[in-house]
């Protein structure tokens, strides 16, 4: 017992540095991100395939087909997904590993410093040197193409959204469904847990966790997951309580089906649509949170392209003469577009599953 602190802290420190660095430093095998993209694609395909077999999903799909706005949002969100995946897939080359997106866009040369959109000469009052090429959205302080940097930053946003969802959705769904199914002390315990976490304002909780755990995409998704499961658990608990009163649950129980089977075969499919809607709407919130946390200085570490860090850096650019506005505009617009399309898609899904809802 007396030796606990030393041992404990050594172990915890090792775990902490492993978690906070796991995405930003490349001690992971190179094939892992590629595998993640592959698995993500398979998961998405499985969801669509499963969805077609269920009647509720088929009806919702039909309604979604009539929703032009929802379809447009789905297309935009998928484009971001493709760009983020291209930036995730890495290939080993002679000069270190490079992502697929970098290889596709490798024809765009790097300039010496700022260049305005479509300018032929560098942004300098005293000595405007000619540029190698025109850049559609200009270049940043290091002369990198703004459009390319903005596209590359998609990866951070998608990784944060995806990893956090991997943390909070299983946790929230499991605890919510168990609390509603077993009631009694399980319910009391789950309610106590989420009341305690909800009692701390979300931003304070995030800041506190990130300050202690350190910067990084890995730690950020853990912090967002710890605060995020509460909403999911509440939602699923409420809906499961409602489903428990439906006759099919009583019938399944009367037929002597096991708890596990009732939970996975009967209750889970009936709350699945809520999980998907919450996942899409939650994803937009996570993308916004990533930008704000990176801006606060507890998010993405230096060197990771992220919309939050680009926006943060562009604050000083606005007070330059002539004004450098394109980095801010590009990052803000990309962020806005992704969040907006996810919000619209989430609303369209909600309408498709529940046409009577108001929003």
């Amino acid at each position, binding site marked *: *017992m*007396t030796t*606990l*602190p030393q041992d*404990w*802290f050594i172990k*915890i*420190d090792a775990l*902490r540095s492993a978690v906070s660095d796991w995405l930003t430093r490349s001690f992971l095998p190179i094939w892992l991100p590629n595998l993640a993209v592959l698995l993500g694609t398979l998961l998405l395909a499985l969801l669509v395939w499963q969805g077609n077999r269920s009647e509720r999903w088929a009806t919702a799909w039909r309604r979604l087909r009539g929703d032009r*706005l929802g379809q447009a949002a789905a297309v935009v969100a998928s484009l971001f997904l493709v760009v983020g995946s291209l930036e995730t897939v890495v290939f080993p080359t002679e000069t270190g590993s490079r992502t697929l997106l970098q290889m596709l866009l490798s024809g765009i040369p790097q300039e010496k410093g700022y260049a305005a959109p479509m300018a032929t000469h560098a942004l300098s009052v005293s000595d405007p040197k000619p540029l190698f090429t025109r850049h559609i959205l200009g270049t940043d302080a290091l002369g990198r193409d703004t459009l390319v940097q903005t596209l590359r930053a998609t990866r951070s946003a998608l990784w944060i959204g995806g990893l956090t969802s991997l943390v909070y959705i299983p946790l929230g769904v499991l605890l919510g469904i168990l609390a509603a199914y077993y009631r009694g002390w399980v319910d009391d315990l789950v309610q*106590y847990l989420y*009341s*305690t*976490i*909800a*009692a*701390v*304002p979300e*931003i*304070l*909780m995030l*800041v*506190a*966790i990130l*300050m*202690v*755990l350190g910067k990084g995409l890995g730690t950020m998704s853990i912090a967002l997951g710890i605060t995020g499961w509460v909403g999911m658990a509440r939602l699923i608990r409420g809906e499961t309580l409602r489903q428990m009163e439906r006759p099919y649950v009583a019938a399944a129980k009367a037929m002597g089906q096991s708890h596990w089977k009732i939970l996975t075969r009967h209750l889970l499919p009936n709350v699945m649509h809520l999980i998907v809607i919450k996942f899409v709407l939650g994803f*937009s919130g996570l993308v*916004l949170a990533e*930008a*704000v946390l990176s*801006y*606060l*200085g*507890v998010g993405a570490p230096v060197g990771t392209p992220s919309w939050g860090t680009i*926006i*943060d850096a*562009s*604050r000083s650019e*606005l007070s330059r003469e002539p004004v450098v506005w394109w980095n*801010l505009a590009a990052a*803000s617009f990309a*962020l*806005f577009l992704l*969040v*907006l399309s996810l*919000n*619209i898609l989430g*609303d369209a899904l909600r309408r498709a599953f529940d046409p009577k809802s*108001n*929003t």
Partner: protein
Amino acid sequence: MFSYLLRRLLFFVPIVAGVMLLTFALFFMVQSPKAMAHRVLGPKATPKAVELWLHNRGYDKPLLINQIPDQPWHDSLFISQMRRLATFDLGRSDVTGRPLSEVFRQGALPSLLLTVPAFLAGLAMSVGLALYLVFIRNAAADLFASLLCVALMSVPVMVYVIFGQYLVAQVFNYFPAFGFQLNGWSTAKFLFLPIALMIVSGLGADVRLFRALFLEELGQDYIRTARAKGVSSAVVLLRHVLKNGLINLITLVVASLPFLIMGSLLLENFFGIPGLGNVLFTAIQMPDFAVVQASVFLGSLLYLGGLLLTDLCYAWADPRIRLH
């Protein structure tokens, strides 16, 4: 009523205890006090300076239970921290050494000057707009406005601030872009822009929520009765929908009242307003763990206060509800 309040307060005790345990685990068990000292003092601090820093704060005590002979078992970091929080002692800043209760008291006024007007004006505007959208419901303008609300929700606060600051301060050059002076009415000119930005950044989500709330009220039976006896739609909206919708609205809004005192993290930093949001922002940059820890504790107390306030307001606004 009194027994209800007492029961509610008793229900809060385990939650506050849980938050206390959570902060202790986070700040003292996930990272060692020594690592914390190094992050405050810098990686090159001498071992002696670190030891002094730890000793001055009592962080060099055994973590959970004191097992050193000749010392009382309760002289440990865990028990002293719990005792400190249980007596609502917020401690001192890690960086400046000032008592945090004093720091927070000083920051409360500028924060309230920013958040209270923004809250009141924002609430009035979003209720008005939502009511109007319900009045013209399903018209093209209503659908467009709903879409606009989603668009407003999709912009991060700092983008609003950067664009707002740039447009208003540098192009129109009328309001100061930065700075704060507590000096009678002239304070207002520093606060105008942050208040306006705070309203705009919250407007989209609020209008959407209130619109849904009022639409739900519109589907009730008593509305059909009112329409059937010939009440005009404007009167139905203002007298019936607004009044009954406000009852539901209170439950959503009142819970956020205590948090007005915390100010706004991003806006206060952008505009140099020395409120609690700015205190926290500085603490994040420093880093000052004591400030963040105290804010977490204070924030949870404010949240629970908000819950209590919601119950009371609900009972006050809706005569059908009795608290016992």
